[in-house]
């Protein structure tokens, strides 16, 4: 058995629940044993029971603390709201993404006039308030940005 074969077996094991494996080939016997707590899979599985509570608490604190300082990006014109420059292209930004001042957030189209809306500040995009392809009014809120 080659060293490469061993490596491959170990890699494969990492993706499974199996903790112990014995292989025999050409007279060589190999026994691989993995301690349960070392498995990344197990660690990931344990997390949800603890972490969500913490996350909720953190989120609530942020929401309370930042409600006043959230920046609202509004539409300067009447038009149609697009999250991406073309239907095939990826969105300018995703929710939760950190953006820089001047970074493009979306396009408002009115009469073949494309108005690229930029972020007014550095921060994190907390929420999109309009769905892609929907009409928007003058001054309508589009995004909430947390300038933290």
């Amino acid at each position: 058995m080659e060293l490469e074969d061993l490596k491959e077996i170990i890699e494969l094991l990492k993706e499974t629940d199996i903790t112990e494996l014995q292989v025999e080939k050409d007279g060589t016997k190999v026994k691989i044993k993995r301690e349960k707590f070392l498995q990344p899979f197990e660690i990931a599985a344990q997390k949800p029971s603890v972490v969500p509570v913490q996350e909720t608490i953190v989120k609530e604190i942020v929401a309370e603390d930042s409600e006043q300082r959230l920046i609202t990006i509004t539409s300067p014109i009447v038009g149609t709201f697009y999250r991406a420059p073309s239907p095939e292209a990826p969105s300018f930004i995703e929710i939760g993404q950190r953006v820089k001042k001047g970074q493009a957030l979306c396009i408002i189209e009115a009469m073949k006039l494309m108005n690229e809306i930029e972020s007014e500040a550095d921060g994190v995009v907390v929420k999109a308030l309009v769905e892609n392809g929907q009409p928007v009014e003058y001054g309508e809120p589009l995004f909430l940005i947390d300038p933290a």
Partner: protein
Amino acid sequence: MPESILNLLTSCDAFVSGQEISTRLGVTRAAVWKKISGLRQKGFVIEAVPSKGYRLIRAPDLAADYLLPRVKGALWKDILVRDTVDSTNDLAISLAAKEGITPGTVIIADRQKSGKGRLGRRWESPGGKNIYMSMVIRPELAPRDVTMLTVLAAVAGARTIQKTGNIPVTIKWPNDLMLADKKLGGILTEVRADPDRINLAVIGIGINVNMRPADFPEELRNIATSVRSGAGHAVARNDIIIELLRELEHWYGILTKEGKKPLLHAWRKDSSTLGRKVRIAIGNTTMSGIAEDIDDNGMLQLKMHSGELRNISAGDITFLR
């Protein structure tokens, strides 16, 4: 700043004597002759008559030093001509962002590698035939009136081709330039505006000038046409560009001094959309009705079957009859 020989030759269509040129430029007659030769090598056709002097017969296609003196004024400040670009709008926007080019700069390309239309659509842009140009302006308009730029470009574009090609070009809402229901030109404006002001506007215009039907890709042959096809002969790109920039300046002046009404009136007059039964595709939905009118910002008022008027800000129109 010393006057250029080309300014002297293009400022009047009559002959300018060699002596006058040498005096005005402060150079010898031999140097004048050398400059004339240089211009001829660049493609300028200059007539020389012994007792009269020199006269400019024809400038090469898309020559900035020929175009600029004919349009420079209150609105237009500079012209940049490029052989090949990805897209004149993209170049204009990136130049404006990086180098802060002067508002009033016009960018013209002979060919675009990825000419674009609305929502990332492609604009067919082969070299040597058509006009692809983008104009950078910082308009004195309230952001909520920014759509008037679309109306402005449509009216100026239609009038330009009516004059230079002597053909009945009309406007399909909001700003397609049409000849007998085939598209001859398209306009895409990109702006950077916040609720307080318009920081930058780039008006991009593509005009099919000397395309023959066979030059169009097959899928466009039934829906696209050119100035040449309509006029029955080739038309110089230079002439259309000059006329277009003059028309844009003219209507921009009216818009900023007299307001929106005259421009909206001119749009209605050249429209081939109003009064027709249309279907409009907006994203994944479509609706149909009569294209009743445009409102005071140029938005389409669609009269639904119920009689209700609905304002449309963006969408693709198909004529139903």
